[in-house]
């Protein structure tokens, strides 16, 4: 999975327009970043790059770059 694909997946999950999310984006400023969105992201990560993160790891993330940090070894 490329970084851009991860960006677009998250944009779809939190129902924002393409181009909204960047590395510095604060997750709590995204209206739809709730537990369902977190589970959706976990599911996409498991399916697309075979990585099984925990919900707590995602809950601890404050910015989009925190999420990228969790999966950077698996991104192309």
């Amino acid at each position, binding site marked *: 999975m490329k970084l851009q694909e991860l960006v677009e*997946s998250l944009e*779809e*999950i939190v*129902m924002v327009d393409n181009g909204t999310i960047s590395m510095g984006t604060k997750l709590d400023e995204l209206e739809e970043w709730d*537990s*369902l*969105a977190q*589970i*959706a992201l*976990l*599911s*996409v990560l498991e*399916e697309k790059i075979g990585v099984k993160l*925990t*919900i707590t790891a995602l*809950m601890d993330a404050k910015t989009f770059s925190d999420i990228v940090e969790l999966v950077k070894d698996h991104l192309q």
Partner: protein
Amino acid sequence: MNPFSVEGKIILVTGASSGIGKQIAETLSNQGASVILVGRNKEKLNETLNSTANKDRHVVETFDLSNIDEIPAWMKRIVEKTGKPINGVVHAAGYHSTIPLRVLSYKSMNEIMTINLYAGLAMLRGCANKKIFAPKSSFVFISSVMGLVGQPGVVSYVASKGAIVSAVKAAALEFANLGTRVNCICPGMVETDMAEDLFSNLSSEQKSSIEKQHPLGMGTPADVAYAASYLISDASRWVTGTSLVVDGGYTSH
């Protein structure tokens, strides 16, 4: 003879390597049935076999239930091996997945439907044969309270379990003239590996909320196995096309 007895009956149990299926196999064996233990993992099936009563009465069968169209022929082969028709099936094999709608793909929908529903329907097809399935037999699906009510994030799971609740009504009508019954059990939250997995993705508030919604607390696999034993036995001779809810009161709210 005790109408609740399953003594001497030959029962095929899918999902016998873990959780509810494993317990059902053990409970039926303790009650005197011969069990055909079906799963994909031979090692785990042998573990189940080791915890049954009268080990030499039972048979281990590894088979991948996603091979839908091969199921009837596979059932025929089993009966040819054992030399006697089956008296009951409990389809306990099943997947759970938490995939919110916004990322739900055909692939994941199909995976869940294939094992939870299609495999069971294919086994019903296999049972439409008096040499494979003796008349006056009993077919039990393990559905879920999630076939009756919903939760966010599990639409495809709910759809598969709800489909079972409806399917058994039509299947019951097709098999009624043979005296054969088709029912499902709708368990609430039961302490199994599958439940552990589910819980690992929830916050502690969500977990505690689910537990609190069960007035009698969480269930055990044995709670479901006793219900399966009843539906397999002749005591439920007049019960067909229905869902037996075994949920500690979860759906009472």
